[in-house]
């Protein structure tokens, strides 16, 4: 589906944790076209410093109302500026961009594994899948109870949720992958994951061990967002020469195409 440019209108922009924000944007033309797992390329400021657009995962879409929600972490100059946006402000949107998640068939049973703010693109996938009468389970791992608050939105649309926190302030004390180990792989036809690379590496290993179909959402610094500049190159696995473009070939890739290393950085799903 065609992407485009739209001047959206900020409806709401508020912190949900110390450094995570949810922004609701009225952007009816863009909202019609969004698929789960795609991203919007957002200009943080109309002047030229910071210069580039920021790729932000689509968190949720209410297509009938033309509203797109973003869940983002304030990590640098661009997202700090976005955090200052107020209702009625204009916001320069390009998108939706990228290859999103494969939507399950009707009545499938799927499992989503989110780590930190990487949970963002899984929300709209949960909504769309539940509309298809799928059974959706979310395993969410985060630093603390406040961050786990993101789970409520999943519960409201009918997803079953299990949580883990690193500080033990809510849910299981530990890693989200500990929860995954307790799951019965035969209960699910598909697994989807987004979060820190070491977490996704463990999720991928689990899926591959159980021969489960799955998709991962990757991130990389981007400039153009449309596959023109080749700036967001990513080596998918050691066997395959050359690089994939995270913006155009991804950000969602099949688990079998990607070899993730548990040692690879602890970067969360969010560009500054």
């Amino acid at each position, binding site marked *: 589906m065609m992407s485009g440019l739209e001047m959206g209108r900020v409806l709401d922009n508020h912190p949900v944790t110390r450094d995570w924000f949810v922004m609701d944007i009225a952007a009816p033309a863009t909202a019609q076209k969004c698929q789960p797992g795609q991203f919007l390329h957002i200009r943080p400021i109309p002047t030229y410093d910071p210069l580039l657009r920021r790729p932000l995962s689509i968190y949720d879409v209410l297509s009938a109302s033309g509203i797109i929600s973003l869940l983002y972490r304030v990590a640098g100059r661009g997202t700090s500026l976005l955090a200052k946006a107020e209702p009625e402000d204009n916001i320069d949107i390009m998108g939706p961009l990228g290859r999103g998640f494969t939507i399950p068939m009707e009545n499938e049973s799927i499992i989503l594994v989110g780590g930190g703010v990487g949970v963002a693109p899984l929300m709209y996938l949960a909504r769309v899948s539940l509309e298809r009468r799928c059974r959706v389970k979310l395993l969410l791992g985060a630093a603390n109870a406040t961050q786990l608050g993101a789970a409520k939105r999943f519960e409201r649309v009918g997803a079953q949720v299990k949580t883990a926190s690193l500080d033990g302030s809510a849910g299981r004390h530990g890693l989200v992958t500990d929860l995954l180990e307790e799951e019965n792989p035969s209960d699910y036809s598909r697994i989807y994951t987004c979060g820190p690379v070491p977490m996704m590496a463990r999720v991928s290993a689990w899926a591959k061990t159980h021969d489960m179909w799955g998709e991962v959402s990757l991130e990389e610094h981007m*400039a153009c967002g*449309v596959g023109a500049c080749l*700036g967001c190159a990513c080596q998918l696995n050691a066997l395959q020469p050359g690089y994939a473009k995270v913006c155009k070939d991804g950000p969602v890739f099949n688990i079998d195409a990607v070899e993730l290393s548990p040692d690879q950085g602890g970067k969360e799903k969010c560009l500054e």
Partner: protein
Amino acid sequence: MNKNKNLITPDLSVDLGGIKMKNPVAVASGTFGYGREYEDYMDIAAIGAVIVKGTTLEPRIGNPPPRIIETPAGMLNAIGLENPGIDVFLDQHLPYLRNKGVTVIANLAGNSIEDYAAVTAKLKGHQGIAGIELNISCPNVKKGGLQFGTDPLMVKQVVQAVKKETSLPVMPKLSPNVTNIVEIAWAAREGGADALSMINTLMGMAIDIDRRRPVLANIFGGLSGPAIKPVALRMIYQVRREMDIPILGGGGIMNARDALEFIMAGASAVSVGTGNFVNPRAALDIARGIQEYLVEQEINKISEVVGAAILR
């Protein structure tokens, strides 16, 4: 208000050393892929010229990531000339652009004089290419990796070698990473350059203080964006003051005012690069802005303001 203002329909067309452009705004190589990446956003045939991704004789996989990083009012890139090779360009991308009626400038690169000649020779018999931009910011492997664009003799030789293989206009893209840009421009002209493209990126770097390492896997990258605009303007001005050669000027152009600065510094046409990432329709918006300026100023032809700011 002058009552005649509405009567002026300025002529925006440009002859850039034999490259016929419908308006003076091109999109820069490496920022616009092969054009089709942006077809959702505009009629790409309305752009003055699409300078396609730098292409080499053989495919290249490019540099490992990270390849880009944002910097104050700009960005660094070290893509490493990732491209599918000239044959794929000619077979898969050029026919699409030709059918769309796009004004195409091929951007060619190599690591030896022979590479440049061979990749140029491949264009023979292919319709739909308006001209050639030569990327001379590549290392010459036969000269210990010294960049072609930093040595006047090599610049002259590479332009001569390419001119021998084609009847198309040839426009080397000059590197700003030199001590004397005018000397390089003279060498390009002596080699037979029909026009000059100015400027390529300025070499720079960024450091990650947490990891105590360079940010880019390639260590160094090319700086682009508004941060380099004053440098680009200065170099174009210096060259155009010394010689009468058409220049395609670029370096951080974001809007029509920026573009007019380049034209008044001596550029016959301009190229938008990094600006495309911020506004995919920048080239068309800028062309319209230039037209509005000409109407406002009652100027009939864009060529009347080329070099207007040069003090003789």
